Structure formats: structure tokens, C-alpha cells
């Protein structure tokens, strides 16, 4: 009985840890900046693919090196996702601050593009992209030099031209430059990342309990990320600026805080954390273009239930949701009631929900019920600004 | 006690320990025009929030015509006959002034009535009259977003009147208006006061002098003193916390 309880708790916590590490970036981007980033899952997916690439690189270096790929993969996933996030913020989101619904739609567009990107990326496309960026930014630079004010239509024409040329170059290369250019980087099917040997197997406790190392690793990683984020926000100079800007943007600007840089940094941080989450989930399953969409909705639920803008809320919510999901989904609850005599209907009820997908149904019902009592989440933000 | 239209008893509003209202006692008679002044952050807006149900008092009770207001949602309180103008004008920007007024003027506020009931001609006349009163006839059919700040202020006052409440709560009606507009607003409020009970919150001393009979001074969430304008102005405590700080302006 005790062992079952500990096992259940462990599994719940490990589900919660995955949720939390995914939700952490969201909690920052959504909680601190009020930006709904539906491409968060795709940033995760990029992190996962980065891990895959890094692992292949290490494979080339030999078996002994392979065991440590993950330590290179983590920072690199962070970096890749953060850079893409940065580009996203500078290119799109900053024009949409204060319009959350529009941001939501725009980031969904980005997520579609990213998903298709990993499916069809090849060298021809990369060259095309480089040409596009070169032409567009080069052209804009020239325009800004020569014109006092760059009119909107000029940018539009420039963009159209650059896109047209880039697409043409990409297509030409794709068709004529041989297989090196036209072969997609990643296969259309899901790819697998093999965890290092020291993360296979698990820690045995007693006779029946087994804590998989991969899960333990994710729990530790989540704690490390939390500590890192906490330290960064509470103790570093930039963290202070971030908190200042979230509380009062115009006042912060008056005090000389570069709010635009702060926005970009906050967003990059949140995106980078998505990358780390992506790296972490490679330990649990295969990697595919749709990897992110499996997690994103749950992660949003964590943030909403926890209370937007509060890290501690996300932590508690992730753990609670994780544990409840496990207890319902694994049938532990149903089992509990089967043993009791008079509770057969209850047992039948919980058996009905005892699959992973049905557990989601139950958890959602619980969340909606919960929101009836605490509409702003477990740890609501206070003050006038939340009333909006 | 029953003659009091508004009766606030020992109300405290605490935001995480910060007391925006602190043991506030306040009451006013039917038909009275009361001006509330007080330095920034004194809790004036919060005071209106408590009456209109936007904020629940942590302690104490607010009564309107003897009815307890706590636990009632905002729209019920509004239906009891309390109308409010916000500090920054809040009108529906994508509706025209006429439509804004219609919306407030409507007596039947449930969903079904809104779907099936047409505007009565009496209501239409009221609205026409109101548009004239607030000087927006020429702009009656452009979106309210295109109105100037002062026009929005007036439109909101108009909406308040259209609602025909028994008690009008007016938060800083002349903030951002020119002197001329201010004076007109003052006249409008005075004429409204003939048939309504009104609470006006204002900073502009000139304006307060124009309309005030009874003045209540709020400071740090409680009533500092109450009386006529000259009494209040000569009260040393008021001079210290409020007028003293702004003497040059007054």
C-alpha cells in the first residue's frame, strides 16, 4: 500500500515535472508579458530537434562521447529556441503588444510555419532563407540610408521582391543542384533520440518500486530551471528590470529602463526554456514536428490554474494536475474504490476515465469546476491592473 | 436613519493589508449634492467602487435607501438606482453618442427584452433632449471614439442621466476640461441636483466652489472633516493635508 502510494506520487510528480518544465517558459511569456504564444510548443519542438542533431554529432565522435551529448544539447537547445524566439518577438510580436487575441493568431501562424519548416527543411531552403534575409535587411538598410522616411509601401515592395527572389533561388537549387541540396534534413517520420546509457534503467527501491533515471533526471532538471529562473528574476539586474517593466511599463521607461530590450530578453528567456523542455522530453519519446502540440494545451492549463504571473502557482498547479492525471489515468483511483464494498458505482465511474485520454477529460472537468471557485487561479494576481 | 439615501458604516477596504478605506463613515440625505475632495490616493475612487459593488468592503456596510449593498453584483446595484461616471471617461467607443444614450436609457435590461423590444418614442425624445443638453446633437451619429476628451466626459454624464438613477456618483467630471467647459459642467450638475442626489468627486477647487454646498474631505481612507466650503477651507487639518500642499494652485 505504502509502496503503491509512493509509486503513484512519484509518477504524478514526474508528470507534473514535465508539465512544469513546459509551462515554465509559458508562465514567463504569458504571465509576465501577457503574450499568448501558441508557437511555444514549436519552440519546444525545435529544442527537441536540436537535441537530435547534437546527438548525431556526438555519435560521430564515438561511443564514450555519446554518453554526454545531453550536456551539450541542453544549452544548445536553449540557445536555438531563444534565438528563434527573439526573432519572433522582434519580427512579429512586438507589433502586437496589447492585442492578445491578435498575438494568439499570429503565433499560431508561426507555429504552422515552424512545423512545416522542420518537415521540409533542406539546404536549398536554407540558402533561400539566407538570400531572403540578406535582400530584405540589406535593402531596408539601403532604403533607410537614402530615404529620410521609409514608406510602408516601400517595405511591402521590398518584402515581396525579396520573397520572390528567395523562392526562385530556393526552387532552382532544389531542382538543379543535386541531392545534397534537395534532401530534407529530417525524415518525415518521427525520429528517435536514444538516451545516454546512464539514464536508462532506474533506481530500484524495495521490491516493486522502480524510479526511471530519465524521469528523475527531468525532475532534477526542472528544479534546476526553476532555481535558475528564480535567481535570474529576483537577483540579477536584468531580472529586476523585467519585474519593473511588468509592473509599470511607462514608469520604467521614464527611469531609463530600455523596455524594448527587456521585452525581447523576457521573450527570449521564455522561448529558451521551451527549448530546454523540448530537450528534456526527448528522453520520454520520439521527436516529430507535432511534438509541441501534445504538451501546449496542458501547459496553458497549468498557467491558468496556477494563476497568471505567479511562478509558485504554476509549480503547485503542475504538481496537482500531474498527480491527479496519474491517479485517474492509471486507474489507481478506480482500484482504490474497487476494494471497498459499497463503492462499486464510484469504481465503475473512475474505471471509465482510467485511460490517458479520458483522464484529460476528467482533469478538464475538474479544472472548470475549480475555476468556478477561483476564477483567477490558485494564486491570483492582485492590484488594479488585473481587472481589465 | 431611513431618510438617508446613502449610508456608509465603518467601511474598511484592505488590499493585501493596505487600507484604501479605513473605518469610513459617511452618509447623505435624499436630494443632496455632496462634493468629496481629498489628495490623490485618499481613496475617493475606491469609495465609489464600494458603493457600486466593484469592490467588496473588507469590513462594514454600505446601505442605499436602507438596503444593504454588499454581496450584490454591480448590475443589480445599478438597477437599484445608482449611476456612476468613471474617472477616465468610459463610453462605448464603437457606438455613436445616440446609441450610447439609448443603451443607458433602456428600461428593460434583460436579454429577451433587448432582442424584441423597440425603442419607444418617449425614450427617443428623452435621448434627443439629452443630446441637446450635453451639446452633442451635431455629433450624435459619429462613433464615440472620435469625440474629444471633454465630449466623452459629457457623453458619460449624459449616459448617467439617461439611466435616471436616484443617486449619481460622478468621479472627477472636469478633469481635462477647459475653463469654459468646466463651468458648463458645473451648471449641468447644479441643474441635475434639483431632482437627484449627487456625489461629486473633484480636485478643481474653483469648480468645487462653484457647486459645493456640503464638502467632505477624505484623507488616507477616512473622513477628515465635513462642512461647507468655507468651513472646510479654514480647517487647519485640511490645510495641512490638502490645501496647504496645493496652495499655489488654488
Amino acid at each position, binding site marked *: 500500500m505504502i509502496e503503491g502510494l509512493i509509486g503513484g506520487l512519484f509518477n504524478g510528480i514526474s508528470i507534473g515535472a514535465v508539465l512544469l518544465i513546459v509551462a515554465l517558459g509559458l508562465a514567463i511569456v504569458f504571465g509576465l508579458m501577457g503574450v499568448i504564444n501558441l508557437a511555444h510548443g514549436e519552440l519546444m519542438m525545435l529544442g527537441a530537434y536540436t537535441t537530435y542533431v547534437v546527438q548525431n554529432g556526438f555519435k560521430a565522435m564515438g561511443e564514450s562521447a555519446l554518453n554526454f551529448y545531453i550536456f551539450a544539447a541542453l544549452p544548445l537547445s536553449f540557445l536555438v529556441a531563444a534565438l528563434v524566439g527573439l526573432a519572433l518577438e522582434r519580427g512579429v510580436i512586438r507589433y502586437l503588444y496589447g492585442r492578445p487575441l491578435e498575438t494568439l493568431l499570429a503565433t499560431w*501562424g*508561426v507555429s504552422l510555419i515552424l512545423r512545416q519548416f522542420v518537415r521540409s527543411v533542406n539546404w536549398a531552403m536554407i540558402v533561400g532563407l539566407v538570400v531572403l534575409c540578406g535582400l530584405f535587411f540589406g535593402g531596408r538598410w539601403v532604403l533607410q540610408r537614402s530615404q529620410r522616411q521609409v514608406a510602408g509601401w516601400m517595405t511591402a515592395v521590398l518584402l515581396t521582391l525579396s520573397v520572390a527572389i528567395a523562392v526562385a533561388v530556393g526552387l532552382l537549387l532544389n531542382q538543379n543542384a543535386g541531392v545534397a541540396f534537395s534532401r530534407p534534413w529530417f525524415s518525415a517520420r518521427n525520429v528517435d533520440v536514444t538516451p545516454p546509457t546512464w539514464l536508462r534503467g532506474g533506481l530500484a527501491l524495495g521490491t516493486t518500486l522502480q524510479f526511471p533515471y530519465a524521469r528523475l533526471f527531468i525532475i532534477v532538471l526542472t528544479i534546476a530551471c526553476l532555481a535558475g529562473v528564480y535567481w535570474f528574476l529576483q537577483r540579477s539586474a536584468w531580472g529586476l528590470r523585467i519585474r519593473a517593466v511588468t509592473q509599470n511599463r511607462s514608469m520604467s521607461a521614464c527611469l531609463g529602463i530600455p523596455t524594448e530590450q527587456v521585452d525581447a530578453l523576457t521573450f527570449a528567456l521564455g522561448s529558451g526554456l521551451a527549448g530546454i523542455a523540448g530537450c528534456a522530453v526527448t528522453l520520454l519519446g520520439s521527436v516529430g514536428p507535432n511534438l509541441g502540440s501534445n504538451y501546449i494545451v496542458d501547459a496553458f492549463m497549468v498557467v491558468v490554474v496556477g494563476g497568471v504571473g505567479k511562478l509558485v502557482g504554476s509549480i503547485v498547479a503542475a504538481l496537482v494536475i500531474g498527480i491527479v492525471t496519474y491517479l485517474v489515468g492509471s486507474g489507481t483511483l478506480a482500484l482504490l474504490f474497487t476494494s471497498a464494498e459499497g463503492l462499486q458505482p464510484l469504481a465503475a465511474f473512475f474505471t471509465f476515465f482510467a485511460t490517458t485520454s479520458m483522464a484529460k477529460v476528467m482533469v478538464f472537468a475538474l479544472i472548470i469546476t475549480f475555476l468556478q471557485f477561483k476564477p483567477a487561479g490558485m494564486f491570483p494576481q492582485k492590484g488594479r491592473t488585473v*481587472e*481589465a | 436613519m431611513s431618510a438617508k439615501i446613502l449610508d456608509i458604516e465603518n467601511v474598511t477596504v484592505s488590499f493585501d493589508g493596505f487600507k484604501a478605506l479605513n473605518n469610513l463613515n459617511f452618509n447623505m440625505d435624499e436630494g443632496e449634492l455632496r462634493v468629496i475632495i481629498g489628495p490623490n490616493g485618499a481613496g475617493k475612487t475606491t469609495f465609489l467602487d464600494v458603493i457600486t459593488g466593484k469592490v467588496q468592503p473588507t469590513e462594514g456596510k454600505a446601505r442605499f435607501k436602507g438596503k444593504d449593498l454588499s454581496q450584490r453584483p454591480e*448590475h443589480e446595484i445599478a438597477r437599484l438606482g445608482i449611476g456612476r461616471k468613471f474617472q477616465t471617461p468610459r463610453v462605448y*467607443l464603437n*457606438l455613436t453618442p445616440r446609441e450610447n444614450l439609448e443603451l443607458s436609457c433602456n428600461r428593460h435590461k434583460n436579454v429577451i427584452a433587448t432582442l424584441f423590444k423597440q425603442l419607444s418614442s418617449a425614450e427617443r425624445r428623452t435621448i434627443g433632449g439629452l443630446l441637446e443638453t450635453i451639446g452633442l446633437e451635431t455629433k450624435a451619429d459619429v462613433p464615440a471614439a472620435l469625440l474629444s476628451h471633454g465630449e466623452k466626459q459629457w457623453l458619460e454624464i449624459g449616459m448617467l442621466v439617461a439611466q435616471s438613477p436616484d443617486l449619481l456618483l460622478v468621479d472627477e467630471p472636469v478633469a481635462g476640461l477647459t475653463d469654459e467647459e468646466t463651468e458648463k459642467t458645473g451648471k449641468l450638475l447644479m441643474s441635475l441636483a434639483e431632482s437627484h442626489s449627487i456625489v461629486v468627486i473633484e480636485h478643481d477647487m474653483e469648480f468645487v466652489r462653484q457647486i459645493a454646498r456640503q464638502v467632505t474631505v477624505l484623507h488616507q481612507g477616512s473622513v477628515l472633516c465635513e462642512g461647507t466650503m468655507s468651513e472646510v477651507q479654514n480647517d487647519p487639518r485640511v490645510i495641512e493635508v490638502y490645501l496647504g500642499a496645493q496652495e499655489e494652485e488654488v
Partner: protein
Amino acid sequence: MATDTFVRPKKGRQAHQRLLVEVGLVIAIALVLILVIPAVVSGFRLGLLGRFLALAIVALGIDLIWGFTGLLSLGHGIFFALGGYALAMYLQINTLGDGELPEFFSLYGVTELPWFWQPFYSLPFTLLAVFIIPAVVAGVLGYLVFRNRIRGVYFSILTQAALVVFFNFFNGQQELINGTNGLKTDTSTFLGVEVGSSSAQFNFYILTVVFLALAYALCRWLTSGRFGRMLIAIRDDENRMRFSGYDPTGFKVLVFAVSGAIAGIAGALYTVQSGIVSPQYMDIAFSIEMVIWVAVGGRATLVGAILGAVFVNLGRSLLSESFPEIWLFFQGALFLLVVTALPDGVVGWLRYRLSDRFRRWFGRSRSVVTPPLLELDPDVGAEKREAIDKR
């Protein structure tokens, strides 16, 4: 932005005339769609058009709640699929002889029709269920969310979560609703005609046009007049309404339910024309796509919603026939473009462009476009508004 999308209380006769013209136009277009188009396009293309028109019906529903009321639902796939499932199940169980069950039930060892499917033997019940069930689901979900004043993006996220949940439920319940495989309708018979036959399909096409016109009329009625102004007031500043004595919850629940009902009808029409209903209709992507149709066409313009749905889907079928992989890039770009460069959609943009030109001809000044500031509480959002004003 939406200011001239509903009729102003014009002086009696004028308003009356405009209404007549509009009714005439709608009927004329419907007649063209029913009489002329089938004569000029092939059966396959006609089927495609029929499906797009069914999607245009959902787009109307989305426009009603998003364009006019400011509620962005990402979960309309639920209502769409519910309508489809209701009709599909009716078709399945009524095609069989007495006591027989659809094939898939026997695969999972179900010998008796589950109780909740029993009423679907009846045609009147089914026809009501097609829109009442989605409306009730939408109403309940809406009530639970709106009564707590959960709004804006939170509402969007919750509807999306609800969508995922319904997807999981339908996907997981093999023995009750055939899970992933969904329900096929092609070989069933409806009133004695095989659903997949070309004559039945043509009738469904006509039915779709009729329902599109009806849905348009309903939305038009709701968005004009007093109720419509109420919707816009909700979009502009719903909290302000409370202080005028209105409770926005009821209004929001009602429009959400109506919008769900419209989506249910659309789903049923789409199902019979595409031959299957499956949990795929509750794919996250599909529900967000519905929003983009409206955005492309022009939110808060009903015509825009219809045109957007038809043309985006036309573009999709053209593009994805020849280059499937480009479609996603294209769609993504469409999202970005519409949101950043064309927030009023094509119809909205045209309307201001054209109306400005007319105004100039008559020597009037340009009209000014004012985007609704949905999420901002003027009492507190001044700082955010400044940020927007700066742009």
C-alpha cells in the same frame, strides 16, 4: 471599425427600403447559387463549393461571437462535430433493418444500442439535436466560463482546452462512437435516397445554400438593432455595462449558444457532403482556421466571413492539390499577414477604401477607423493604451 456594419435607426422609410434591397440581394445570390452555378460547374466542383458554403455557415457563427462580441472561440470544432455526429448516427442506425446495429458496434462487443443513441431513431429529434445539442453544450460551457468573468485570452484558451478534451473523448470511445474512425454517411440512405448519390448531394447543396441564407438573416437580425449594439458594447467595454444595469453574462451565453447552434448545422451539412464525420473535425488546427477565414474576409462584416471562408478554402484546395507542403507555409503567412497588415480583413479594407473615395468625391472628409480596444479597461489600461497610441 464595426460602426457601419449594422443599420442605424434611419428614418423609417429609408431603413425599410434598405432592408428590402438587402433581402432581394440575398435571394438573388441564393438563386444564382442554386440555379446558375450547378449548370456551369462540374459535379465534383459543385460538391466542393457545397462544402465550402457549409464552412461559410460556421464562419458566420464565429463572426457573430468574435467579430461583433469580441469573444475568440478556438473550440468551434466541438459544435461542428456534434452536429455532424448527430446526423451521421441517425443515418447509420436508420439505414439498417430492425434490431441490426452499425457494424463497428459488433467489433467492440456492443450488442445493444447505447441509450443515448436511442432517440436518434427519430428524424424530428435528430433534426432538432443537430443544433440544440451544440447550443446546449456551448451554453453550458459559456455560462460556466462567463459567470466568473473569465474573458479575453483566457476564454480562448479554455475553449481550446475543451476542444482537446472533446477530441480525446470522441477519439477514445471506440465502443460508443467508433473512436478515431468516425461515422461514415456515404452508403446510408436519407429519406430513401442514398446519401452519396449525386441527386442527394445536389439536394444537400441546395439545402446548404438555403441554410447559409437563413444563418445570414439570423446573424443580421441579431447584430442590428438593440441587441447588436449590446454586443458591440460588450466588445468595447463589458464591465462598463454592469454599471448601467446590464448583466453581460446572459448576452454572452446567448450569442455563444447561437453561434454553437449555427456551427452544429454547418457540421451536419458538411458531414453529409463529405461523407464522414470523425474526431478530426475537432482538430485544434481546424478550429483556429475557422477564425482565420473570418479574419481574412473581415471580422464584424458578415459578408466578409462568408467570402473569407469560401475563398480561403478555395485557395487551400487549389494549392494543396498541387503543392501540399506549401499550403502550411502559405496558411501560416496568411495568419501573420492578416493580423499585422490587414486587421480589418479584405472586406473591411475595401469598405473603408471605397467609402473614403466616395466621401472625397462628395467633398467630405475621410472616415476614421478606430480599432476596438478589446482588452483594455480604460480605468486601468491607460498605460497600455499609450503604448498602442504611440504606434
